[in-house]
């Protein structure tokens, strides 16, 4: 899939300095004094047809980033330029009304928890037909056929046996397939997949991942694939970005980042995962403590408090910029 990035074409999505700060406390008439910097000025590009991975520990802002990219949340700063190839690229952060609705035909999201992402009181048909209905994407009489075809595509065959069942009658894997069908039935070109397999049984994960990959190829979809599992990222994504407390700390081709990690945080993440190659050696990197909540973080490097190689320079300088290092990836660290 790495070859899908054609040189010279404009990226599907360009994220520029995207920022989401949640007020830490709510006041009625006054601005909150402290903020959770869930996403703190990240920039990246996502090429057409590419699967871009977003990895990092719990709470680092992956879901928030995904929600910003499909406009489920409004950013507090930055831009998301979306180029559907049919005209000038649009900044989706300012879309309203009909323009926003039109954007929603092209960008969809698959949620983490298949038990909570389907309305328990609606049949599978109602759930999958919903985008077609609210977007008026096809004549009402054709909905049944489109939904059936979509169910077939996600492996729920024969569709007629699933159409009028309720979510509680399906297994977790089947539900996630329904959720995938709902996201893809409107034929989007960009899909945020928020840890779509993390709640599923290990035995059926690969099946769902293969399905998503083959659908992406068949339908020409680009994924922002969110995961905390490096093996999954390696399997699904041609490029990845590693996030830490709202910042991207390392970004590049998946193999380059995973074979030759430059940022101390990426190195620590990788040293927690066994290497499949028995001849390879890797110096263990230990980091202490857990992930803090990015509540009003000090202006220095976000990783400073846990970094094994931090020094006075790191303490006295702002968060390092992303710069080209190592095997072509970009790294945000003064000492890499």
């Amino acid at each position, binding site marked *: 899939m790495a070859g899908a990035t054609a040189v010279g074409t404009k990226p599907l999505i360009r994220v520029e300095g995207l920022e989401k700060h949640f007020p830490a406390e709510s006041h009625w008439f006054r601005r909150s004094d402290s903020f959770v910097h869930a996403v703190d000025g990240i920039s990246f590009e996502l090429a057409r047809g590419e699967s871009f991975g977003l990895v990092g520990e719990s709470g680092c802002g992956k879901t928030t980033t995904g929600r910003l990219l499909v406009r*489920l949340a409004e950013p507090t700063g930055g831009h998301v330029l979306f180029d559907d190839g049919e005209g000038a690229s649009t900044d989706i952060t300012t879309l309203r009304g009909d323009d926003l609705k039109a954007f929603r035909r092209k960008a969809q*999201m698959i949620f983490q928890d298949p038990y909570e992402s389907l309305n328990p009181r609606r049949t599978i048909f109602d759930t999958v037909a919903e985008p077609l209905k609210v977007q008026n994407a096809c004549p009402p*009489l054709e909905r049944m056929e489109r939904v059936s075809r979509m169910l077939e595509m996600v492996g729920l065959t024969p*569709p007629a046996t699933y159409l009028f069942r309720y979510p509680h009658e399906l297994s977790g894997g089947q539900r996630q397939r329904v959720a995938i069908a709902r996201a893809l039935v409107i034929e989007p070109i960009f899909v945020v997949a928020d840890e779509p397999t993390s709640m599923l049984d290990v035995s059926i994960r690969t099946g769902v991942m293969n399905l998503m990959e083959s659908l992406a190829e068949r339908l020409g979809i680009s994924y922002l694939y969110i995961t905390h599992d490096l093996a999954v990222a390696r399997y699904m994504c041609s490029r990845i970005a590693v996030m830490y407390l709202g910042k991207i700390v390392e970004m590049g081709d998946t193999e380059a980042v995973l074979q030759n990690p430059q940022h101390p945080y990426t190195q620590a993440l990788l040293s927690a995962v066994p290497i499949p190659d028995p001849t390879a050696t890797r110096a263990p990197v230990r980091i202490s403590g857990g992930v803090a909540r990015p509540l009003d973080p000090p202006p220095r490097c976000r990783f400073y408090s846990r970094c094994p190689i931090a020094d006075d320079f790191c303490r006295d300088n702002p968060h390092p910029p992303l710069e080209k290092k190592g095997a072509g990836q970009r790294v945000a660290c003064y000492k890499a």
Partner: protein
Amino acid sequence: MVIDTGPIPNAPSLWRVRLGLAGRSLKQNWSLFLRTRIGILGLVIIVFYMLLALAHPILMNTVWDERIYDPVIGFAFDETQQPAPPSLSHPLGTDPLGRDILSQLMFSARSEFLLGLLAAVVTVCIGTMVGATAAYFGGLIDMLLMRLADIMIMMPGISILIVLSALIEVGHLELALLIGILSGFGGTGVVLKSQALSVVVKPYIEAARTSGGGTLHIILVHVVPNLLPLSFLYMMFTVTSAIFSEAVLSFLGLLDVRMSWGLMIHTTESAGYLLQVGEYWWLIFPASLSITLLCSSFYLLGRSLDEVVNPRLRRT
């Protein structure tokens, strides 16, 4: 593996499929309901009073002489002295004004039902919309609706009715609307909002938003249906409180109604028989027992519906 897509139902028959699904879930719920004893008890009482209410016009048109048995302007010429104790022609006796008690009881049952159901429907419609709106929007709208709810809850219902009944004629219809508004914007709205809060954070709400669904679509299609089980529950409790309020208010003589169970006790009281229960039991017991039974039956029905819609309460 041979992929057999099976017969795909086409759209014109969609409503029939839905009807079948609704029927199936009704059947399941009914069998759950049958397992709750208290619910059946409640239902039996309700059906009994419904039959009484339905039988009244039939009796009036066939065996009962209007001049004698009319619940409001009838007079038992066949009795020498009023109030007359139960007899063959007047199974529950007559009241101090010579009217047949059984006829009054049956006549009132119908208005009790109408009052209770109207109050319940108004309450639940308002309460569900208030709850869903406050929870979905949050912020200023939520604050305004909840402060309004505080006012409604603090509002002294009986005192308002005393004032209102001095200003306008408060009958069954007005009372039902008033109870519906007070409780819909008040307590019921608050309870349904707390339920709605757990619905609006569900990922399927976000999924509906990414599908392009607008606010109205999300509230009506995703939030409200998930509140309905609880709404039905509160409907039952509202019936109870409506019938009870009506009884209290007409006992106090504050309602402008032709006949009701509360008014029957009021008549007894104003004629001075209230404290002679032992001697004139038929003046008190039929009406007060009916109030108690019908109120409890809707409460029992509500409790058992609670078990049906709330799997955690179910004994297996």
